């Protein structure tokens, strides 16, 4: 939006502000409704309900944080009761003063939050790179040892005898006073987690969960993201622990059974992934359930386990999927993708870089198979460079080496005068290299607009903390990303589908979404991996116009394709690969008459 003048930007912002409010209302209303219900409870309920309500609020404090880990990032944290235990004991011990001088409870809670945040990260370390099972195991192991330590470290925790929970000063020392405190804290953590969920960080979490490879290509750093939410979830869990200890008035290791862990976990699964309201309802239902089914108390774990199995096997989408009415409306069946490439000029900033992307002597072998063998390749800015060859000739492998998924065994890659480090796919986006994939990698559960916005993640300037507290810079980021994404959807001709779940779209539409996502970066170089595969003849023509318009903005395009017509129509340079080696390189006219190319690939 470089062409928009400052004054109109301000009025745009003003309009966007009121527009955002109107758009946000349907999302906020259910939460305000829940809060209203929570505030009405004291008028209709007795002390027993105060206890149940307080317990719900406390559980939700924990689950609201855990939801980001399980529901958004997709990491199966099954032992989070350990962090509740940790928070409960930290608060109780600090307030009781049997290690250090007694600390007021409102100071002890933040300290517990810090301790919980630190341990949240330690427990989460295996999740940063490894399979999710390692993380599940790590939380389970942590739950086991925390209970053992609580039992064995008698001088501090009181061992099996236990320790008194913290007491809150008036007015929070009555049943309803404490209830309001817990509801207040729960509302606060809901607000925090919703802020994260709606920011580019929340989208990045889902991207890492559902399309990790694509997320890396857009520059999302998984470890950084996960550490941030582990800190938050750990802190929430520890605060919940402090409140829980106070509610219990006296805690022993027996109070923290694995049942609780399962409850937190199942609440999120019942609620549904990527939702906040769903898990909140899940928490409420699961807290009330044992009260109704009191005779079955001994079998509660068993019932939770059955419930867990049923959810996994029967309704993996949870409550959120049931409530998602918007995405059940049928889509128009005769939709055509009509890109408007001319609009690009107003959206994508002109690539100023006049650096070329150059590969020299790049080699990579898998075992004894030489996938690429001494490849030289130059992609000039503003040019379309075609990369063709038979199947298995190393085209996609070349793209994967450039975008860092594979580290070349020999050779160099340079961007102008800079060397591109081998490997490290997440660092490509900041260097202005974007790409699409042979099989479209989009996030099925997110809307089309959100999918495109993912592409601009590295463009955002607000830090995680700013997003957490919904500070102005985050709102600016959101407006910028959403505006640009909508405009780019217009360019590729999909703006009418912006709010539809991406998994409801056709294959060809997904291809154009990927291009829009890649353009969010204003890339200097765009790597397209068979963008025309599965497209109709008309669509291929429109794709060609779109690619030409992109290069007209100064972007260099490296195009891997099997459609010979498309390649010869639009490419400025063509490199032909065979068995990892260059068979020929030159202009389309030269390649068309090259004897070996004709016999090996084009036929004729």
């Amino acid at each position, binding site marked *: 939006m470089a062409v928009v003048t400052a004054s109109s930007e301000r009025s745009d912002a003003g309009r966007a502000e009121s527009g955002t409010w109107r758009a946000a209302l349907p999302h906020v209303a259910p939460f305000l409704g829940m809060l209203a219900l929570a505030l009405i409870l004291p008028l209709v309920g007795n002390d027993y309900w105060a206890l149940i309500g307080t317990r719900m609020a406390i559980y939700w404090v924990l689950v609201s944080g855990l939801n980001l880990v399980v529901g958004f990032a997709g990491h199966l944290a099954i032992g989070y009761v350990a962090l509740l235990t940790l928070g409960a004991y930290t608060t109780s011990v600090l307030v009781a003063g049997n290690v250090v001088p007694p600390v007021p409870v409102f100071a002890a809670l933040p300290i517990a939050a810090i301790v919980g945040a630190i341990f949240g990260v330690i427990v989460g370390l*295996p999740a940063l790179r490894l*399979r*999710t099972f*390692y993380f599940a*195991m790590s939380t389970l192991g942590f739950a086991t040892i925390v209970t053992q330590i609580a039992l064995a470290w008698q001088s501090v925790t009181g061992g099996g005898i236990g320790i008194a929970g913290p007491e809150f000063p008036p007015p929070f020392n009555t049943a309803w006073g404490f209830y309001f405190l817990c509801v207040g804290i729960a509302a606060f953590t809901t607000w925090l987690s919703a802020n994260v969920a709606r920011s580019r960080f929340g989208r990045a979490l889902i991207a890492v969960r559902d399309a990790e490879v694509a997320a890396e290509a857009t520059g999302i750093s998984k470890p950084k993201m996960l550490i941030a939410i582990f800190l938050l979830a750990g802190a929430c869990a520890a605060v919940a622990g402090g409140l829980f200890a106070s509610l219990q008035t006296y805690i022993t290791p027996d109070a923290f059974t*694995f049942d609780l862990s399962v409850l937190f976990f199942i609440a999120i699964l019942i609620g549904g992934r990527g939702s906040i309201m769903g898990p909140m309802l899940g928490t409420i239902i699961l807290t009330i359930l044992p009260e109704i089914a009191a005779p079955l108390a001994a079998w509660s774990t*068993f019932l939770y386990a059955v419930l867990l199995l049923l959810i*996994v096997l029967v309704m993996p989408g949870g409550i959120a999927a049931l409530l998602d009415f918007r995405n059940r409306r049928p889509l128009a069946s005769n939709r055509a993708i009509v890109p408007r490439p001319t609009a690009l000029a107003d959206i994508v900033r002109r690539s100023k870089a006049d650096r070329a992307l150059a590969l020299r002597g790049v080699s990579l072998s*898998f075992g004894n198979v030489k996938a690429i063998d001494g490849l030289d390749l130059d992609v000039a800015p503003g040019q379309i460079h075609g990369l063709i060859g038979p199947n298995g000739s190393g085209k996609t492998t070349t793209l*994967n080496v450039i975008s860092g998924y594979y580290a070349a065994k020999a050779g160099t890659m340079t961007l102008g005068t800079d060397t591109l480090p081998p490997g490290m796919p997440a660092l490509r986006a900041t260097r202005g290299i974007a790409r699409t994939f042979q099989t479209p990698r989009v996030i099925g559960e997110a809307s089309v607009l959100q999918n495109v916005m993912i592409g601009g993640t590295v463009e955002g300037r607000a830090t995680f903390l700013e997003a957490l507290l919904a500070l102005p810079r985050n709102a600016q980021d959101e407006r910028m990303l959403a505006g640009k994404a909508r405009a780019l959807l217009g360019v590729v001709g999909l703006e009418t589908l912006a709010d539809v779940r991406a998994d409801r779209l056709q294959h060809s539409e997904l291809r154009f979404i990927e291009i829009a996502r890649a353009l969010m970066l204003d890339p200097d170089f765009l790597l397209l991996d068979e963008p025309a595969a599965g497209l109709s003849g008309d669509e291929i023509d429109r794709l060609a116009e779109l690619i030409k318009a992109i290069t007209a903005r100064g972007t260099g395009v490296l195009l891997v394709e099997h459609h010979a017509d498309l390649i010869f129509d639009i490419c400025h340079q063509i490199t032909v690969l065979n068995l990892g080696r260059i068979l020929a390189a030159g202009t389309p006219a030269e390649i068309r008459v090259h004897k070996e190319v004709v016999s090996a690939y084009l036929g004729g």
Partner: protein
Amino acid sequence: MLASIIAAGLASGAIYALVGVTYNTMFSTSRVMSFTAGQLAMLGGVFGSMFTLKLGMPLIAGFLLTLLCCAIIGIITEFVAVRPVLKSLDQHLYVLSTLAVALMIQQIAAIKWGTEPQPFPRLIGLGSGVWDEKFWLPVLACAVTILALEYLYRRTLVGRAFLAIAEDNFAARALGLPERNLRIASYALAGIIGGVAGFSGGELLLAFFANGALLNFYGFVPVALGGLGNNRGAIVGGLALGLFQQAANFLVGGIFSSVAVFALFIVSCSRRRKACSAAPRHGEYDGRGDRLI
């Protein structure tokens, strides 16, 4: 003192190693890591005590019946928790489904058997002190299991079929191997190995429902140390873990020995993280369940 550390360390290490092998056996044919591994070992102790002590059966009959029951539980796991989620391995639903089955097993054991640790009979009555049978029985069981598995995998057709499926599921099916039946067989085998672990370690761990969760974790550490699907690694890792835990127990006390084990687990995970970041083989799952090509 050193002798008792080594005896207790090797004994518990052998049990952890066997649970690790149980994980690997299930993983090899299904690519699923199942939370029931530790529960199977727990059941080995509980069934063993029930058959031989409560019902007064002869040792051999009780042992065989225990293994049979564990094998059946293994097969049930395959039907209930593994088969339905195999289609979407990348969503890691197996973590949840096997956890659900593990929790059911644990809860039923707690209710039907009781929540207190109960005695396990003295099996042979041989040895005392550090040479007590409760120390050398698990080690012996571990050695016998490993030899039997080596024989199975290297000398028999069924064993080679297991290896083929573990190596390349698609190619093995294309060759006409009955993948589904082999998977069921491997879950039964895993049940038997878990049962052996629990039965041989019964005198050390007693018959106690909560052993399941404990062994789930302690049995997975050798797998994390030795590498997924690597039985030799699991054996070495398990024995090392047992010795490490007992040594830590002696040196820094009971509270911190479990902390030491947890730290070891976290460190072993970050060590494997480096191994993962090397370039994957062409078309191979890159350790995150996501196919690159």
